[in-house]
């Protein structure tokens, strides 16, 4: 299975401390880069300030270096979990395009994405709660719709077996 980032393996205080530290650096970066500000993202999408390219570029260079070192230089597993160092590779299918398109409309309309929205809470931007509420509703609706779809498919298969 390609979802290698979802199984936590080790838990406990040290594990959570590292996750928390990573989250703090991540959120600090979203603040410094001003991505927690929907107006700045919208300025990018309206092609008035292309700085966002450098945010994504700067972050991707560091993560590329990180994954390169993890998979090619460090010949061992992560100290806190025993998990092997891997790269993030997801299967390609139609949902990647459909999801990307729906995400793009939402991002273009609002200027918010999940990480930046959480960071915005830390800056005291309470109207962002509308966006976070919307994201949870969207994720729930998506899950509900896919469950119903799966049920219907399973149902018709059973019917077909008669």
């Amino acid at each position, binding site marked *: 299975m390609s979802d290698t980032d979802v199984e936590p393996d080790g838990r406990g205080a040290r594990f959570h401390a590292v996750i928390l530290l990573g989250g703090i650096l991540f959120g600090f970066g979203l603040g410094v880069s001003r991505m*927690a500000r929907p107006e700045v993202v919208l300025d990018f999408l309206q092609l008035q300030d292309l700085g966002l390219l450098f945010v994504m570029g700067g972050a991707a260079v560091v993560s590329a270096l990180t994954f390169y070192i993890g998979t090619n230089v460090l010949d061992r597993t992560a100290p806190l979990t025993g998990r092997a160092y891997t790269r993030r590779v997801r299967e390609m299918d139609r949902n990647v395009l459909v999801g990307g398109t729906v*995400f793009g409309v939402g991002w273009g309309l609002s200027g918010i994405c999940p990480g930046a929205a959480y960071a915005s809470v830390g800056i005291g931007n309470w109207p962002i709660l509308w966006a976070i509420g919307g994201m949870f509703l969207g994720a729930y609706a998506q899950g509900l719709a896919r469950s119903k779809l799966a049920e219907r498919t399973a149902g018709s298969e059973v019917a077909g077996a008669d």
Partner: protein
Amino acid sequence: MPPWLAAYFPDGVVGYAVGGVFIGLGVAAIYFGTGIIAGASTFLESTLSYASRLPRFNRGKYLASRDWRVTFTAGIIIGAAVYALTLGPGGWTTQVQPWRLLAGGFLVGVGTRLGKGCTSGHGVCGVGSVSGTSITNVATFMVVAIGTAQVALALGVSP
């Protein structure tokens, strides 16, 4: 930077790039410590497992990771608060209208779960992994988002 290019970077590029490097360092800290490649959007589904009995949200991978995803998200909030109180302008609120935030958020929630990631999962970690799937997803949402923002601008939706 030539003037024609500088016009596209009214706030320079250093602050943006430095912020991006910190985002990458956050990913690196978690990766080297735990081997986990952290994205921000799975938090939505894994957190729904606390409140919903829908089997889709209660799959093993969400139940197993929902606790650390809460920790990760708390860290993001704390990190941004540290920025706001030190280098940043203190607190501020967005002028973007609530209906845009709510409707846009809804579509982001659907799209990120359907498309297996968001700007951090695909855009930072996936692109950093040179994953064709992620590069395709990022190219798709970039083009669509720019188009959407241009249409909104043309229709006079502001802010």
